[in-house]
């Protein structure tokens, strides 16, 4: 066990994974300089330029090349520098990465990982604060995970690398360095597809993932302090997602608040609400509340706070479900 930040935990996972000769890491500035967030710090030096590969500025090329590598038997880990720069690679992801197993009926597979720092909250430049997970959730054939803490960050990344299919790993920029926790030193995985029950409760269920767990946790604490018993779920894995844990919880509490940082319309929160009402309608005491980013371009630094879901909003939403 070592205390690590999320970024350090991811670095440890990459280091661990690169011990296997078929794993390569590639992307813009991942090598010599260790990545713009230093997540791959030290790995270029340790594993050399054939294993930790600095690429030209070409996202479609990075993902398409990694895809070819995966078909030919390597296990590439491709980094996209920021989520807003993943869009040039969307064609490769939807039309190729997510399809090869099905279109070749298991003959060819793409055991690759696509790492993408995502989300706002650091007042970054335009296109540097996106949360486009819904696009990947809606894409057949790729899995999507979003750790919220150092333990899961390492465990989910290692699970993604071990997975026989392509996995998008979304790394919450805002908590790269701000959350620390104990992380085992060797190889371990966090299973893809299972949510984490962070706190059990009776009155209302709060469901969130990634960077938003920070707000969700703070809201839960505040509510508990006021005598509301909160069940807090960290979804962790968006494809597949853990219907069972969420449904069981809402059947018990009869109330739910679903939190996502992404734009509101047709996001992951919409999907969760749809599934919950399908499976738990008769247990609902109040409409399920969605706390989300708005359907606007994420504001720049000076007004970003008007976009990001807040602890207050989550608390207020939970209260509304209780008053209904």
């Amino acid at each position, binding site marked *: 066990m070592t205390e690590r930040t999320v970024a350090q935990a991811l670095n440890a996972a990459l280091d661990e994974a690169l011990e296997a000769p078929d794993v390569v890491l590639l992307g813009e500035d991942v090598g010599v300089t260790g990545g713009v967030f230093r997540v791959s710090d030290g790995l270029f030096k340790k594993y050399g330029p054939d294993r930790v590969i600095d690429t030209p500025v*070409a996202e*479609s090329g990075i993902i398409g090349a990694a895809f070819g590598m995966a*078909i030919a038997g390597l296990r590439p880990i491709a980094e996209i520098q920021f989520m807003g720069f993943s869009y040039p690679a969307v064609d490769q992801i939807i039309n190729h990465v997510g399809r090869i197993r*099905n*279109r070749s009926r*298991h003959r060819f597979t793409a055991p690759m990982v696509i790492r993408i720092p995502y989300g706002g909250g650091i007042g970054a430049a335009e296109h540097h604060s996106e949360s486009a997970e819904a696009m990947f959730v809606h894409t057949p054939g790729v899995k999507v995970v979003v750790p919220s803490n150092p333990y899961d960050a390492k465990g989910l990344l290692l699970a993604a690398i071990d997975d026989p299919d392509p996995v998008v790993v979304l790394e919450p920029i805002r908590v790269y360095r701000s959350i620390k926790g104990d992380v085992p030193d060797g190889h371990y995985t966090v299973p893809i597809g299972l949510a984490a029950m962070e706190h059990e409760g009776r009155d209302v269920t709060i469901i969130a993932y990634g960077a938003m767990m920070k707000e969700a946790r703070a809201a839960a604490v505040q509510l508990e302090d006021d005598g509301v018993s909160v069940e807090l779920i960290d979804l962790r894995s968006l494809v597949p997602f853990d*219907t069972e844990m969420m449904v069981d919880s809402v059947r018990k509490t009869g109330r739910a608040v679903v939190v996502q940082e992404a734009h509101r319309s047709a996001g992951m929160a919409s999907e969760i609400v749809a599934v919950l009402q399908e499976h738990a309608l008769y247990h609902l005491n109040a409409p399920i509340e969605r706390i989300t980013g708005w359907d606007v371009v994420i504001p720049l630094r000076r007004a970003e706070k008007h976009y990001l879901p807040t602890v207050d909003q989550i608390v207020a939403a939970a209260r509304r479900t209780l008053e209904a």
Partner: protein
Amino acid sequence: MPEPRTILNENGELLADSPLDLETIQNLYESMVIARTYDHKASAMQRQGRLATYAQFEGQEACQIGSVAPLEPRDWVAATYRDAAAMWAHGYPWVNLVLGRTGDERGGQAPEGVNVLPPSITVGGHMIHAVGLAWAEQLKGTGAVALTLFGDGATSEGDFHEAMNFAGVYTLPVVFFCQNNGWAISMPRDRQTAAETIASKGAGYGVPGVLVDGNDLLAVFAATAEAVDRARNGGGATLIEALTYRMGPHTTTDDPGRYGHTAAVGMWAERDPLERVRRYLERNGRWDADWEAGIEDHAHEIVEAAVAEAEALPPLSSDEIFEAMFAEPTTQLREQQRLARGERAHD
């Protein structure tokens, strides 16, 4: 416009030494006959409603058979919807190609050991896959190379650029083979790019570009063999532009009468890639009508057998469409599979 490299002229005369012996040329000629037989059969089947849209390759047989001929089985081929001949020549069974065209995912299931990707239907995306395949082989140090076939239209996509650039930067063992067949659906080559040749695009990536007569089996073979050799020996990528013509419509849903395609068909018929090899073989006492009849019969047998096998296969069931998205279907897919069966997923 620079002259393309030609070895065998339209009359079946050698303009330079042949890179191949007569027996090999006979074999490749037979391959071209088989390919054309398939092409005609598939077009006919499409008209009968037995296939989905079909993209004919007639006129491009020298490109496809000639470019694959220098490869070893361990090498990779990443090609398009129009490249059935090339895929087959590298080991992809006809039955898969027919199946694919009936609209069946199992067409994409190359046999184990056949290093051919399912045909790319999107224009552009697969060239970068070839780069990745070549890169993996380079990193593993196997000496295997990748060949990617694509059209003149595909060179306008951003992915062509990114693929070529990566190939140049990392000196990758990949051969870019452009079949410039004059058209991208209705768009003529001279409106696709203002570059004088597609081969000239190589320089922008530090990758040599060569221009060959795409209806000349021997020139195509020679150019590709040199490129494959260079790639295998650490010399990096090559861009080959083969000048050819699409003798039929873009696909069976296209009407080439609507654009200027038809006018040139007659001229290109005189440059038929099979005919000039036939003449050459005849000149050298390696062709007569009986032999031709024999290989044609054989071709029909092969193609008919593939068609029969493909059509005998029952379609994928509802259950099966869920089975190859991941190594194991996810919870959501299992639930959806139950819903598709008409079962209630929940209580």
